[in-house]
């Protein structure tokens, strides 16, 4: 504070005190009062100071105080009011004024006792009303008040200091902006917009070059100069000045000044730093003037948000975090992970190449991102490093490192602010640099930096959205169209319901309800998880994932409503439940897919988290893989197997790999229901221990539900084949010859038999030998004639007896009177050798008998003679039709046959069931439709014999059919023949005549049968 200023102080300070009277004008008269009252006081005050010129100090202090307080007074009318309230305690208006002034000016002075004393001495009288210490009454009060006010001031100063400049500025701006708007708005409200456009009569705008980055500074200094010169004779002729600088502006390096004449500008900017009015001024076209003032949204950088670096090249594209933004908004202090090589590459700093140029730095792969390491740095450059190990702040090579991060002020234009899209991996690196690792990730800042970049993509038509900012706050609707930053929405709730409005994405967020089924999209690390919303707070949504039933918290903007059946997506080429090769000896099944990794259940039952890069390859799913379970049954993929022992888990086979099966079960959620087992440790789930065929059609147990069985409900399962030996063997007592072996040709009588052998008492020698039945030829006891086809001799015409009847073996029971023997002895057919074979026996029989195919077929097929007799029996029965041939064929034949084929498979059952089917038709229904292939096989294997058999039955069949008709003819004669012995010749002749015809032959048989029924007893005699 020099002399000249002291002189000027009056007017200046007067101005300064209320620099914006217009602003204050809405303050009521009180303020004006203040001014008025202060003015005389001020007039006095300088006088006083001038009087006391010796103590400059005091003066200065006063001035300082005054400035301070003035400044604050400008700012803080609230505080004024506060003071007033406080002051009101004292009640006396005038005194309050005084106190106020005290507060403004004299606190320091009062504290200073000496000064105060001087003041008191010198100015007590004439300064009455300024500091009233003269009044002894009030001295106490004043002292106390002063003390209090003093403390008050201290406190406020402290507060002010605490206020950071930014906040102060913001407050200031808010208050003033608010004040100015009111009248301004009123004006514009009345005047149409286009009339406000500049015309030729308005001042022109010139662009003036200035130093880049200093635009704002220049404008500030212009403003200061304008204020300084205001009201003086050399007032500046400019009416406005502004700048459109900024990191990304095209108008940087220019300020714009509005003035009537160019000279005004030159004059105004004369001698100002950083601005170059002498260079060519750019006159702005009138049309372009409004454009100059168009407001552009500049991206705001907030501390904590993420940016990417453009330069230096070494760091291009690297993620950085904003720590701070400088006040002029041009630079930001960012931290990023350094890429240092710690001098590993340069041999000698500043080394010269042969041609004298500085060696270019080796270009190549840039060093990897790594946090700064003091140890590394000290190795090569111990001299370049300074810092404090306690705070972990270092200077190295001119760069500053904090906590391992490189911290640097970088111009905002060298930062990529939009579309940063930091990945979680990158962000994690920053976080891990923190004290407590991952916990340090600030989801809020992440959200902030993601907000601008991805909002417009995340809204899709159909999303339910909510406006949470701006005038339309609280409006809820459904997005119908998204175009750039503008979302068109149909409002569904609130006053605006039914309307369609357009809103910027900025103030939008998605809205979900509890219970919604959502999928995580966007940048969250839970990407692709699907789950149900459990709770919502602001824009954070808690959801319960479907896969793991755990709760996760994500931003609502990262969510989308999901279809009800959400599937886990795929990670690259890998999908859930794929079989992958981890190393040459290990395979695993993918049980969980994350965004960047997957969880694999390996063949040993361990789960491990792997990256796709750790997987050697994916094993294709082999549909045809076959293995044998612990029972030896084959198992294939999709079979249901059960673990033997262990946890007895049961599941469907997903993969078979060598000796391991990977199965899926619904019983547990662990590992997505996948478990692994040794092949030898599972057993197939199946009723019969057989293979479960995958085909649904043949899946059900056909046997249990076979309708054929249901048709015959009395049949209880498989009836056992008839007993091999029931009754007496007809062979016993027969005269036989032996046709094979050492006893060949000898005659004998069968004493007893077993299934296969007969004990024959030889006639020649009193000896009983054991001979296979097959080696015997039965001979007529009287004539010694061979009875051919003994086993099958019971012909079709033998209708009468049933197996269950009293006379199971009527033929032999009859003993000597059996029709055969009787007939043979009686009928000419048997008696006449010439006609006998053909006449007495039907051609059918002869054919059957002579059908070499038949017997050998049986023999061949059976491989054992045992069955053969039964076969004979059975067939005979079959021919008789009394017993169902099905029994004989079904029960017996398939069994030996299938044995012969050596396959004991369920086909056997099929064969049996088929026997049922065939039973209704022909005894040897080889051609009968057989549902199962195996059954068919066994039958087809049988076919030759069977067909032979069927031939054999073909023969009786006509007989059976034919029998009734001729039989009728002979019904009458037969008894006659029986009863009338004489006309035997006639009969013989008759027979002889008739014998050759098959029908006759057959009818003879039927006649025999009927004769049987009529009166066998008489015949015997």
């Amino acid at each position, binding site marked *: 504070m020099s002399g000249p200023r002291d002189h000027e102080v009056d007017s200046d300070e007067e101005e300064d005190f209320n620099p914006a009277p217009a602003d204050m004008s809405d303050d009521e008269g009180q303020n004006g009062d203040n001014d008025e009252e202060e003015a005389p006081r001020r007039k006095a005050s300088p006088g006083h100071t001038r009087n006391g010129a010796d103590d400059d100090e005091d003066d200065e202090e006063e001035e300082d105080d005054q400035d301070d307080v003035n400044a604050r007074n400008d700012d803080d009318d609230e505080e004024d009011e506060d003071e007033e309230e406080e002051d009101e305690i004292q009640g006396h208006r005038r005194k309050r004024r005084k106190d106020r002034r005290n507060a403004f000016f004299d606190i320091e002075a009062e504290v200073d006792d000496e000064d105060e004393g001087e003041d008191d001495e010198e100015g007590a009288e004439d300064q009455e009303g300024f500091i009233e210490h003269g009044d002894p009454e009030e001295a106490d009060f004043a002292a106390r008040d002063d003390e209090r006010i003093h403390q008050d001031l201290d406190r406020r100063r402290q507060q002010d200091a605490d206020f950071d400049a930014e906040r102060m500025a913001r407050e200031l701006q808010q208050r003033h902006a608010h004040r100015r708007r009111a009248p301004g708005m009123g004006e514009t409200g009345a005047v149409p917009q286009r009339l406000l456009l500049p015309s030729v009569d308005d001042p022109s705008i010139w662009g003036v070059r200035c130093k880049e980055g200093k635009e704002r500074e220049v404008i500030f200094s212009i403003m200061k100069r304008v204020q300084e010169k205001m009201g003086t004779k050399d007032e500046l002729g400019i009416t406005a000045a502004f700048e459109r600088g900024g990191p990304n502006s095209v108008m940087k390096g220019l300020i714009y000044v509005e003035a009537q004449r160019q000279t005004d500008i030159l004059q105004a900017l004369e001698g100002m730093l950083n601005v170059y009015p002498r260079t060519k001024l750019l006159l702005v076209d009138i049309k372009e003037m409004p454009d100059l003032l168009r407001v552009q949204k500049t991206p705001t950088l907030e501390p904590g948000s993420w940016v990417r670096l453009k330069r230096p090249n070494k760091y291009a594209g690297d993620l950085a975090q904003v720590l701070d933004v400088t006040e002029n908004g041009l630079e930001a202090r960012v931290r990023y992970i350094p890429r240092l090589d710690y001098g590993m590459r340069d041999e000698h700093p500043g080394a010269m190449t042969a041609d004298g140029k500085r060696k270019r730095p080796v270009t190549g792969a840039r060093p990897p991102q790594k946090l700064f390491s003091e140890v590394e740095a000290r190795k090569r450059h111990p001299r370049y490093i300074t810092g404090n190990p306690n705070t972990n702040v270092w200077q190295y090579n001119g760069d500053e490192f904090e906590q391992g991060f490189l911290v640097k002020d970088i111009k905002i234009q060298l930062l990529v602010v939009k579309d940063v899209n930091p990945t979680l991996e990158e962000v994690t690196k920053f976080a891990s640099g923190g004290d407590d690792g991952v916990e340090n990730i600030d989801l809020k800042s992440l959200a902030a930096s993601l907000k601008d970049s991805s909002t417009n993509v995340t809204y899709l038509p159909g999303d339910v959205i909510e406006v949470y900012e701006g005038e339309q706050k609280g409006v809820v609707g459904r997005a119908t169209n998204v175009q750039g930053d503008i979302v068109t929405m149909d409002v569904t709730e609130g006053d605006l319901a039914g309307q369609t409005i357009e809103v910027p994405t900025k103030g939008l967020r998605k809205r979900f309800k*509890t*219970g919604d089924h959502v999928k995580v999209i966007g940048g969250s690390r839970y990407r692709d998880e699907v789950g149900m919303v459990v709770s919502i707070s602001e824009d954070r949504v808690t959801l*319960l994932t479907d896969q793991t039933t755990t709760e996760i918290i994500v931003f609502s903007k990262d969510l989308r409503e999901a279809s009800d059946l959400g599937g886990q997506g795929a990670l690259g080429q890998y999908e859930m439940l794929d079989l992958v090769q981890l190393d040459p000896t290990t395979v695993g099944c993918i049980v969980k897919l994350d965004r960047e990794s997957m969880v694999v259940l390996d063949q040993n039952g361990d789960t491990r988290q792997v990256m796709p890069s750790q997987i050697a390859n994916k094993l294709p799913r082999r549909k045809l893989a076959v293995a044998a379970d612990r029972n030896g049954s084959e198992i294939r993929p999709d079979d249901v197997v059960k673990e033997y022992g262990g946890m007895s888990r049961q599941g469907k086979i997903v993969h078979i790999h060598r000796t391991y099966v990977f199965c899926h079960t619904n019983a547990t959620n662990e590992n997505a229901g996948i478990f692994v087992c040794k092949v030898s440790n599972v057993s197939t789930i199946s009723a019969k221990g057989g293979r479960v065929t995958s085909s649904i059609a043949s899946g059900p147990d056909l046997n249990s539900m076979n309708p*054929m069985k249901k048709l015959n409900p009395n049949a209880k399962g498989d009836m056992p084949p008839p007993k091999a030996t029931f009754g007496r063997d007809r062979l016993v007592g027969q005269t036989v010859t032996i046709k094979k072996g050492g006893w060949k040709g000898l005659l004998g009588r069968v004493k007893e038999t077993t299934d296969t052998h007969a004990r024959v008492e030889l006639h020649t020698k009193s000896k009983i030998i054991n001979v296979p039945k097959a080696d015997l030829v039965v001979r007529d006891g009287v004539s010694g004639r061979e009875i051919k086809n003994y086993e099958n001799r019971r012909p079709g015409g033998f209708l009468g007896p049933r197996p269950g009847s009293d006379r199971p073996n009527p033929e032999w029971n009859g003993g000597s009177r059996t029709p055969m023997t009787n007939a043979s002895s009686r009928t000419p057919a048997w008696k006449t050798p010439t006609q006998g074979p053909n006449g007495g026996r039907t051609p059918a029989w002869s054919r059957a008998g002579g059908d070499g195919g038949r017997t050998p077929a049986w023999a061949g097929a059976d491989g054992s003679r045992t069955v053969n007799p039964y076969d004979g029996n059975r067939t005979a029965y079959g021919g008789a039709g009394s017993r169902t041939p099905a029994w004989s064929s079904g029960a017996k034949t398939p069994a030996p046959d299938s044995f012969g084929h050596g396959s004991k498979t369920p086909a056997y059952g099929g064969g049996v069931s088929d026997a049922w089917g065939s039973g209704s038709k022909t005894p040897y229904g080889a051609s009968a439709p057989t549902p199962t292939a195996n059954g068919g096989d066994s039958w087809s294997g049988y076919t030759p014999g069977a067909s032979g058999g069927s031939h054999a039955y073909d023969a009786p069949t006509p007989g059976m059919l034919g029998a009734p008709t001729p039989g009728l003819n002979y019904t009458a004669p037969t008894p006659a023949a029986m009863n009338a012995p004489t006309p035997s010749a006639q009969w013989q002749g008759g027979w002889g005549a008739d014998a050759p015809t098959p029908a006759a032959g057959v009818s003879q048989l039927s006649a025999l049968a009927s004769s049987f029924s009529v009166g066998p007893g008489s015949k015997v005699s």
Partner: protein
Amino acid sequence: MFFLYNMERRVTLHPSYFGKNMHELVTGKLLKDVEGTCTGSYYIISIMDTFDISEGRILPGNGLAEFTVRYRAVVWRPFKGETIDAVVVSVNVHGFFAEAGPLRIFVSSYLIPSDIKWDPNATPPAFSDGDETRIEVGTHTRIKLMGIRAEVGELWAIGSIKEDYLGALEQES
């Protein structure tokens, strides 16, 4: 909510079943295939009757006969917002699982009134308000369904007891 619902299904029959009782078999197969299953949004609880069995049509290739059967069944469909009674089957710190028939319901701790707190020290673990309300395995609860999701062959839901008249029911044993 339970509904009586007319539905239609195609049933295939193996040739070996062809015969006079085919319709019985078709009905039997239908019962076996359908009863107790979940088709997307509802469970088929019981089949009342089949009122129309079409003529069988032999499928080319495999000889199966296909019948179109129309039947009437009792189905149960849980609805969002429906209040149902369920039995708690498991309790953990995040909430509890309950079952209402075939439906599994999860009630998150967010959807449990704030005065009912997770009490890990209790045996068995339970949610409790320190007074008489205890939610542990076996507790009968009344739950409001907040969301329902269909999976293959089953439904499951999340529920809330954070409303009046919801929560543990008094056991009248």
